[in-house]
């Protein structure tokens, strides 16, 4: 499995995974960890490394809201790439809750949805097995123009046309 990161200024590149996923019973190691929402709620006070959480697309962003300050990574799991809830959750976290940390897509993450995901606010992509990394990196160049306001543009096309 490969992990890639996309930043409009820095481009797209494969990265090493600095994070380790923790199951609920495991003790906290001295490194960056991704825990479940249940575990997150139980963790109070300082943790040794950075803190991340893994949720699914059905999660109410309200449940994440109290923790956003201390989260450096939110991983949203896609059981199937056609499960569109992850996209709405990502946008809500970015637009409504002002989350600025890493937003990572995990699970059934394929090449042809990466552009949409990035536009909804994802910046890291844990590619599903068998996805060609070179193909995946090229996905962010699929379109150079988009219509809606999203991560890439603050204004819809009809206002950008007028130089707005």
């Amino acid at each position, binding site marked *: 499995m490969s992990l890639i990161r996309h930043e409009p200024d820095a481009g797209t590149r494969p990265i090493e995974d600095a994070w380790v996923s923790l199951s609920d019973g495991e003790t906290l190691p001295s490194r960056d960890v991704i825990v479940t929402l249940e575990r997150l709620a139980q963790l109070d006070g300082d943790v040794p490394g950075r803190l991340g959480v893994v949720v699914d697309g059905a999660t109410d962003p309200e449940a994440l809201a109290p923790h956003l300050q201390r989260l450096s990574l939110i991983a949203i799991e896609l059981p199937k790439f056609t499960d*569109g809830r992850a*996209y709405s959750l990502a946008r809500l976290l970015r637009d409504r809750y002002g989350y600025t940390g890493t937003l990572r897509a995990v699970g059934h993450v394929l090449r042809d949805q990466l552009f*949409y995901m990035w536009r909804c606010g994802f910046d890291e992509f844990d590619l599903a097995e068998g996805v060609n990394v070179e193909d995946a990196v090229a996905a962010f160049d699929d379109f150079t123009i*988009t219509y809606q306001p999203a991560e890439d543009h603050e204004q819809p096309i009809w206002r950008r046309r007028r130089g707005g």
Partner: protein
Amino acid sequence: MYQYDAFDQRIVEERAQQFRDQVIRRIDGRLGENDFKPLRLQNGLYMQLHAYMMRIAVPYGLLSSRQLRALAEITRKYDRGYGHFTTRQNMQLNWPKLEDIPNILDDLAAVQMHAIQTSGNCIRNITSDPYAGVAADEIADPRPYCELLRQWSTFHPEFAFLPRKFKFAITGATEDRAAIRVHDIGIRLVKNDAGEIGFEYYVGGGQGRTPLVAPCINEFVPELDLVSYSEAVLRTYNRLGRRDNKFKARIKILVKQVGADEFARLVEEEHAQIKDGPLKLTPEDVAQFRRFFRPPIYEVLPDEDPKLQAALLSKDRTFAGWVRNNTAKHRSPGYAIVNLSLKNRDLPPGDVTADQMDAVADLADRYSLGGVTVTHRQNLVFTDVRKSDLPELYESLRDLGFATPNFGKLTDIICCPGLDYCNLANARSISVAQDVQARFDALGKLYDVGDLQLNISGCINACGHHHVGHIGILGIDKQGVEHYQLMLGGSRALDSSLGKILGKALTHDEIGSAVERVVMAYVGFRESDEETFLDCYRRLGPAPFKEAVYEPNQA
């Protein structure tokens, strides 16, 4: 009509390139069929009984003569020289090859067309009133709003993978010619007491296996909130719609489960958060879209044309019958709206050959300012014909076989491709349509029965809109034999109703004569020539019709 600028043009070109790359990866094996399927569907590409079927978008049904000629050329180059107009105002090709699709997309892009989101669980082509812009009963032209929503919904990153497909219909007129209440979202332009434009917003209608008439969730969405309100509806659906069962995934099920009031409240709550964001329209935004649909400069003409009057009085009554049936009132004096009937018996309903497309394009240039509109009844419309040209145009249309004076009549049948083409179908539908057409043509009964819509679907997916036909026919499979359910009393107008099954299913041999019996019974029951079939059925209920069909000898 809307003209692409450099941005729109680049998007359709990049789309063609993107799909070319996807096809290459599919063919070399990097992309498996399971992962490719949702991608090709979002490009209107289905796997059908015999081959791929490709659906080309005709946004709100509007085509220029240049685009129609390009479609003709595409069907010659990549298909078998004909195309099929659908109930969503699109065009389908029945025999394209996978490796040709990227080239077809290139050819489409060259005339500002595409196949984006013509299938798949996303926002589909937005449909509208075929008389938009010229209807005498129009409150305001819906097309600028259609185009706004087209751009908003095209490759919307958040709504590419909804629980299920999603269809918008918009009308700006008093009479609903767009069947808005059987759509996921139906929008009707209205004006408030202050004369401001707004939208009556209906959500959760649909056909298919659970037919429902959409409730109104907001009686007045202000004009400048159209896009943000739609985004709120879609987000609510995307987050809460069911994903565990394909048959319960449409928005109509969600609206029914939580109730229209509660759904409206959820949308309101979401909308409150985004209504003043970047999707809030400004008057300049709307003006930018309205510019493309400014009325053409019409000649100043008398409303009564002497040449037309003379022709109407001629001995041959067929022309007068055609004018009465197939033309409609235009907003501008001296002009008429002309319906071209694609329901002659030589071809399945909605089918048009490449040569016919070219001929229609030529006629559009000569008689209707170079434009053609596709209707949800699978016909074509010339919206801007001078009344003085009607006799000449009639001759040309008759030669093409498009002047059958049956617009809105029993033989103007809505019909899906059925078992002859579709791998979902349980039964043939085209042959049933042809049987009914033959019966009523031969008997010359057409003019006696008034407005009567017969809709035929080959399966419960209801592509032939059988629930909202005054007479609806649904093909089913009964122990391996094709059978047909007959339903009566449906309507797609603003007073929408869904047809009710009359009795036991009938065989392919029986269904045509059953329709004939229903119609003849109506002719006997009606109180006057003015009482339409629907009014008569609503007055009498199903019992006498049931008797006429199932116990004809006692009646």
